């Protein structure tokens, strides 16, 4: 009898555990990153507290990644249809600029300014969507056009400068920066949750339910999986795609409002290259760029993984240059793992 090689096949329990881990590898990766953070984190010199695990730090990660997270939510909808939305960073900039302009230069009520900013973002998304579904443009090209145009509009509104309190004489209609900026970024009722973070978590939760439990969500998967089969099954392909891009625009608009509040000015350059971080979060989560596979929960995990990884690297003193390099490596690693699973 030939000597039996020791392989994974001979140890079914381990194989099963690995298979289970493979299915939940987004969660596994998040746990690994989290534990890594706890281990390598420096400790507070006075109290000896682990900096990474401190509630303040945890709350900061969510706060700082809320904008990327919002973009990633919209991006997931679009990527599920096998599309891509390159315009989200620019739309964020447009929305942030418009919001700040309406508040500071026009003295609008915050809710009205926010509503118009969200509408502007949604409008940008719907434009991309119509270009894709009606004019049959490649999503890459259509959203590239929107990306350039939205940036232009943002600069037009602001006259090319950051819209901040007192930036121009007539911007000083109010005393100090608008109150809403401070309100949005301050912890609620003594807790650690800030309204900006809440926007992100709420949008994520709502869209997760939409994607997994509604007809619209099912249609997204069907279109991304096989557009012609979906059309022949009565799926309204054009409408669904347009809506997906529109919602992506809405998320970018909301991220823009959050951005203005966080920075307390309206920067027409805001959101530059954010679309790449959003795509990275989606891909690291495990949603396929080919469409039809993935989901919102995965994107949530992906966003946290990127957010934590970035935080850990800055805690251990890496500079931005090194952090970017590391992020590139993480993306490659995530995709490689994703691909090996499929074989």
């Amino acid at each position, binding site marked *: 009898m030939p000597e039996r090689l020791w392989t994974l096949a001979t140890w079914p329990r381990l194989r099963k555990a690995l298979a289970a881990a493979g299915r939940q590898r987004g969660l596994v990766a998040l746990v690994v990153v989290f534990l890594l953070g706890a281990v390598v984190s420096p400790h507070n010199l006075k109290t000896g507290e682990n900096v990474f695990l401190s509630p303040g730090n945890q709350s900061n990660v969510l706060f700082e990644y809320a904008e990327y997270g919002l973009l990633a939510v919209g991006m997931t909808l679009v990527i599920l249809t096998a599309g891509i939305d390159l315009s989200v960073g620019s739309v964020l900039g447009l929305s942030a600029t418009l919001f700040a302009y309406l508040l500071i230069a026009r003295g609008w009520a915050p809710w009205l300014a926010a509503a118009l900013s969200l509408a502007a973002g949604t409008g940008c998304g719907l434009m991309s969507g119509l270009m894709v579904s009606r004019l049959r443009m490649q999503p890459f090209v259509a959203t590239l056009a929107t990306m350039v145009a939205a940036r232009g509009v943002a600069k037009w509104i602001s006259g090319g400068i950051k819209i901040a309190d007192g930036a121009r004489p007539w911007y000083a209609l109010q005393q100090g920066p608008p109150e809403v900026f401070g309100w949005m970024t301050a912890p609620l009722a003594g807790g650690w949750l800030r309204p900006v973070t809440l926007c992100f978590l709420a949008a994520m939760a709502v869209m997760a339910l939409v994607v997994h439990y509604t007809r619209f969500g099912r249609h997204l998967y069907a279109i*991304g*999986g096989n557009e012609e*089969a*979906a059309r022949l099954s*009565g799926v309204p392909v054009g409408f669904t795609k347009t809506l997906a891009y529109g919602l992506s625009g809405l998320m970018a608009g909301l991220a823009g409002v959050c951005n203005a509040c966080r920075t307390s000015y309206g920067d027409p350059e805001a959101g530059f290259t954010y679309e790449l971080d959003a795509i990275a979060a989606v891909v690291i989560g495990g949603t*396929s760029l080919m469409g039809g596979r993935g989901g919102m929960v995965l994107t949530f995990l992906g966003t946290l993984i990127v957010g934590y990884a970035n935080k850990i690297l800055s805690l251990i003193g890496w500079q931005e240059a090194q952090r970017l390099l590391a992020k590139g490596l993480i993306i490659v690693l995530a995709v490689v793992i994703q691909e090996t699973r499929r074989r």
Partner: protein
Amino acid sequence: MSMRESSDTPTPRRPLLSMRGIRKAFGGTTALRGVDLEIAEGEIHGLVGENGAGKSTLMRILSGALAPDAGSIAWRGEEVRLPTPQAALAAGIAMIHQELSLIPSVSVAGNIFLGHEPRGRFGVVKVGLMRRRAADLMASLSTEVDVTRPVEDYSLGTQQMVEVAKALSHSASLIVMDEPTSSLEEAETAKLFEVIRDLRARGVTVIYISHKMEEIYELCDRVTVLRDGERIGTAAVSELPREELIQWMVGRRIEQFFPKARVKPGAEVLRVEGLTLDSEHGGGRRILDGVSLSVRAGEIVGLAGLRGSGASELMGALFGRYGGRVRGRVQIGGKDTVVTSPAAAMAQGLALLTDDRKATGLVLPMSVLHNMTLASLDRVARAGVIRRSQELQLAQPLVRNLAIRADSVDVEVSSLSGGNQQKVALAKWLMAQPRVLLLDEPTRGIDVGAKTEIYHLMSRLAAEGRGILLITSELPELLAMADRIVVLHRGRVTAELSGPEATQERVMAAAVQEARCA
């Protein structure tokens, strides 16, 4: 056990290939349970079995695309490992898949020598030499082509020949063909058979996978039958009666191959008058030219025609695939209707089972359940929210009635065998409760057992009072199942035959009619 050893008859020539005890499991499902396969040098060896029997898995292991969990492969008497398709090719084993693997926009010569182009100094491809060799290869298959033109310019039959030439360019001594005739016309099939016999004469061995019994008996020397991942037996086809072969495959006798029930036709459910569709490329060519026909409740109307006859396009036009480009009058259920989208067609009670389940029928990354309910989300959703309990309630009876074999309704539909995929595609449309079913090649590429089940189902649907329009390239199937047959040629109706006048000869005559005149 059920293993039948007609293979006691000694193998005529020395074995070229001998696979022993091949096992393979995917996750929880076992695809192969210790299969033996012995191929003699220079024979044409048929490999048959129902979908999911393990044929494809076995052949993918042979061609290096999959690694077996256990078992050994002896090639020309020596044990070999075939870890990659390249290794298999290097040994002389080539595989031609059912879905051809040619690159449409690349030239014939480029496709044949893809990946092993003759190279000169500095790695520059010797285009002239490559073209000459490609032309020689195609000529040796007595196929006339311009090897510099892209393969997409040629018919599927010719493309099949390019695949064969590609295999020969690797000096393959064993070629595996997986259902090569599933989309070929009769003349092309005859041509392919000639070439295969010629290959045998040149000492090339062929493993031929097919679901068509006639082909196995016409072409093969010996045949091996697989069922549920086991080898049931190997025998010379001359010693194996057809009925027994089918019994080996399905493990039971099939009483009535075509279970055609006589149904008294009811009211007209579909009426088409003067349906016309111009070619998208203009030039005055018409894909459909004044087609008229009608289907009554309980009736199965067959559409016959060679490729390019417009039969598939007729179904597409009725189902709104061509938007507003279609002219003519369509009545569904006695009412005039204009259908400009699939969604509108569905609202009128039409269903279209397309001829290509992978490209246009199923959403492969989605689950069995989600595919089944895709066309009926109105029935399972309230205010846009899908209720899973409702989905399961609609899907489970269909899974049972159609005997869809899957570990669960939540597995990806791509993990099912071809026949089961087809049943899922059909289940999707049954769930939508259509009045008229347009069935385009409902039995293409599926095994005998599943075919019979689908015929039964069609009879049942007709008996329920639904109208059925049926396309199938297998003429006996069409003659047996259809109450009437409408023959198309170049977008025009050339005959409408029913009862005793519907014979194979008359259908063929009408299908090629104008080609003879012109």
